[in-house]
């Protein structure tokens, strides 16, 4: 193990005072003020568009065209990074400041092997060539990669996302830097891997005393990993303090709203209270004077017309708010719901969809290695009208395959399906019946929408082939837009001009066009900001109340599943290993896979 570098008295690794970044129209980062001490982890938390990545770009001198630092100072270990010459700055990068980017596989040159990439890195650090191979293996072992020699000979496309991220961490820590900046480093990974990487990061950081700047939109993850938190909203720093302080008693209304918008995994069921509206985009920033959060804030008073200043509170944290610190923000509170009614546990109609002994295998590999790999085995369940069922499981367990078979995109090899009492086959009549009753929304909302069609056309896409009057079609589009909460002004926009939440609403609206009985939602809220996610979840509950739609929700976020679904099914390796009432399964899991999933959701790491 490489011994930790001996430091002098703990000093400030990073000190940022009054940093502001401008474009020609607006100030996209305003008054950023914080310091990072040696050996501490600071989490920078903000929803998309808040400007957190800009901060890491300033550090790396990689601001996009049109952005420039307009005020403030940034000093790293005593050196002012904003004014030092480019060569001096480049010298620091990779040696004393290391970056860990989001997409690990793309960050590695695809035609160079891992050992070649390490060698290049070591050459830059000025280490003796003879020791490169041993050091590379050491580094890989320190990030818990098995068979380091084998990994060194491989190419990035042969490694999984998690393994590539470990390689990047290894390279970063191998330079023994003073500061590591992780820009959404775990966002692209699945939750189990995410947790492992984060724990690894913490262990390595503690061993070597490196300071870490962890940028993320996931407040829970940041709370689990970081000592201190800094909350960003629309380019302004709204709160900065230690994690326990902020979690136990959040000072700023926005922080409070963020915390309230997360569906809880334990405790009584409570309706989520999301913030209405969304974060102002860069174009609308100049029109906001005073406090940028004021339009969405419940207790905006006349003092909020002036931009509030950063003040230190009694308990040591920094807060930027002028009024109502301790009251609650305005929320779009849904009609008070009885928990059981919301979860659809009332009333029992007979199931309309029945699945019996479903099985499906894929042919993989090329000759002579062709073999049958089973994707699904022995799937049995049924869905009643208006029932919300969650489908969870580790990645690769067959959840998406099941969704596609239910939709009719793939044909099962064994088993039978019954819809409304009649069996479903692979013929055209079955396809039509199925299409009317079952709809599927995909995960990546931007690629499931034809980029050249407008919102109103996409909402009523299933009416393309029916003889429908234009006025009827328009009326239907308006009704759907209202049902999913899309304003009429967006009708002529293209998907690229919509936000993530708006696109997801469009997806839902499109699926609802023919009023299906079942909506299969494949990771419908993953990748959305917390407040937008909460809005969509409440929308689904409202849709169930009004139209009695059943939902099969595939998600890796157990909190979301608990919030929405009355029943849950756990899958592993193509089989349903546990199913039942959500509350019961989550409070007393029986199968080891379920237990594993719950542990990961509670951020408990197993030390294998």
């Amino acid at each position, binding site marked *: 193990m490489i011994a930790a570098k001996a430091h002098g008295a703990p000093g400030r690794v990073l000190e940022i005072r009054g940093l502001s970044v401008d474009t020609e129209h607006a100030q996209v980062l305003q008054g950023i003020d914080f310091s990072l001490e040696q050996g501490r982890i600071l989490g920078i938390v903000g929803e998309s568009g808040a400007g957190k990545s800009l901060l890491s770009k300033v550090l790396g001198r*990689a601001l996009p065209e049109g952005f420039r630092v307009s005020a403030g100072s940034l000093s790293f270990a005593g050196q002012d990074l904003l004014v030092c010459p480019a060569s001096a700055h480049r010298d620091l*990068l990779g040696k004393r400041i290391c*970056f860990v*980017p989001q*997409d690990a596989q793309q960050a590695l040159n*695809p*035609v160079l092997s891992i050992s070649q990439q390490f060698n290049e890195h070591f050459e830059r650090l000025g280490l003796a060539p003879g020791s490169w191979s041993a050091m590379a293996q050491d580094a890989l072992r320190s990030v818990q990669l098995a068979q380091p020699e084998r990994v060194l000979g491989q*190419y990035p496309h042969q490694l999984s996302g998690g393994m590539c991220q470990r390689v990047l961490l290894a390279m970063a820590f191998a330079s023994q830097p003073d500061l590591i900046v992780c820009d959404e480093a775990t966002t692209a990974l699945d939750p189990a891997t995410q947790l492992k990487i984060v724990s690894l990061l913490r262990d390595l950081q503690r061993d070597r005393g490196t300071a870490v700047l962890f940028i993320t939109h996931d407040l829970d993850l940041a709370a689990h990993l970081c000592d201190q938190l800094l909350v960003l909203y629309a380019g302004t720093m709204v709160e900065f303090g230690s994690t326990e302080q902020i979690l136990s008693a959040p000072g700023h209304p926005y922080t409070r709203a963020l915390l309230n918008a997360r569906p809880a995994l334990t405790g009584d069921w409570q309706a989520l209270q999301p913030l209405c509206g969304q974060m102002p985009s860069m174009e609308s920033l100049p029109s906001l004077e005073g406090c940028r959060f004021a339009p969405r804030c419940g207790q905006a008073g006349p003092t909020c017309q002036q931009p509030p200043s950063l003040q230190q509170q009694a308990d040591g944290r920094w807060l930027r708010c002028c009024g109502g610190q301790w009251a609650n923000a305005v929320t779009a509170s849904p009609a008070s719901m009885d928990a059981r009614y919301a979860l659809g546990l009332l009333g029992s109609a007979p199931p309309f969809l029945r699945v019996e002994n479903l099985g499906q295998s894929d042919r993989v590999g090329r000759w002579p290695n062709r073999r049958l790999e089973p994707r699904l085995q022995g799937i049995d369940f049924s869905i009643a009208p208006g029932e919300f069922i969650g489908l969870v499981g580790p990645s690769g367990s067959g959840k998406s395959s099941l969704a596609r078979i239910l939709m009719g995109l793939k044909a099962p090899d064994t088993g039978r399906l019954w819809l409304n009492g009649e069996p479903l086959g692979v013929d055209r009549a079955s396809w039509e019946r199925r299409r009317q009753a079952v709809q599927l929304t995909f995960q990546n909302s931007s690629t499931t929408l034809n980029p050249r069609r407008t919102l109103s056309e996409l909402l009523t896409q299933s009416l393309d082939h029916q003889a429908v009057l234009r006025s009827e079609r328009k009326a239907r589009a308006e009704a759907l837009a209202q049902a999913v909460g899309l304003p009429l002004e967006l009708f002529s926009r293209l998907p690229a001009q919509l936000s993530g939440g708006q696109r997801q609403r469009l997806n839902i609206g499109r699926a609802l066009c023919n009023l299906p009985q079942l909506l299969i939602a494949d990771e419908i809220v993953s990748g959305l900001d917390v407040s937008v996610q909460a809005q969509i979840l409440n929308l689904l509950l409202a849709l169930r109340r009004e139209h009695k739609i059943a939902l099969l929700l595939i998600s890796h976020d157990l909190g979301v599943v608990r919030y929405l679904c009355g029943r849950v099914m756990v899958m592993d390796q193509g089989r349903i290993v546990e199913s039942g009432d959500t509350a019961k399964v989550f409070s007393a899991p029986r199968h080891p896979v379920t237990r594993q999933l719950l542990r990961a959701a509670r951020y408990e790491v197993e030390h294998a």
Partner: protein
Amino acid sequence: MQISRYRGTVDGLSRSLIPLARLPVILITVAALVFVLLRVLPLDPAAMLLSPNATHEQSTQMRQALGLDRPIFVQLWLWIRDASRGDLGQSLQFDDSVSSHILHALPVTLQLVGCGLLLGIVLGVASGVLAFHGRNTPLRGALDLLNGLALAIPEYLWGIVLILVFGITLKMLPFYGQIDPRFQVPSRTGLLLFDSVLAGDGAALGSAAAHLLLPATALAMSIAPPLMRVLYSSLDQAFDQEYVHYGRLRGLSERRLLVHHALRNAWLPVVTLMGVQGGLLIGGTLLVESIFGLPGLGNLMIDAISSQDLPMIQGVALVYALAVLISNTCVELALVHLDPRLRSL
């Protein structure tokens, strides 16, 4: 590390077998196509060899002698069978074997293609890298302009322009034939440059090289401009990639990023382009040889077409097709070697 490199090679080899296996299939299909196409044409080789007032029996006799009265599939089979043995039939123009003419003409064309390819690649790569390195300077605009102009001029026009400028106006370089008729070089390989080296005749080598310069340049101008464009755009794309951004964040210099990272990835579309341009290059030799008076396959083909010498057309067409197929296969194999992502099955 040794193990995985070996495995990579084995994967790469088995991946390479596929294009190699397809080659004979395509070749035979091409041969059949050529054959059928020519037979369908309203050409009557028999009539060509006879005087205009030949009698009907004489023409029937001639057709029998040429084998034109048998059903077409039999003719095809016979031709393929003979071709695989190297016998491509008898030329109608010269009354001797087609293969012998082809064997004489082939080295001339090979020499031309080789030099043109080399010159074109060097010019294209150099200008592409130069344009990219100076992409924020006026150099790029100037190179772009030249490139656009060069692209717009087909290679036969390049040949003409080069003759007009260097041959006639400036009188700097010779532009007809392969070598000054004063020199006599014993022909061993058929490649004039090699033969002069083997014979130790420096002056002849100089003359042969001088005669080759203009036609090779004309051919090179069909590769260099598109190559420069593709190299520039693939370097541009490579620089956009995440691994270049991350390399900067790791403190690597711009020069290192260009040469060791971007260029290594930028080769791939360039090599693919070479595959596509290969066919065009080989086709370009046709006119270039005719303009510069080089006795290669191109000239052979043009004469054969104008005198409707069917066996010659077939034979040369087959050789052309073989050349294009071989170059395509080489390109595919090179791609598998250069891009590790293509190696895993």
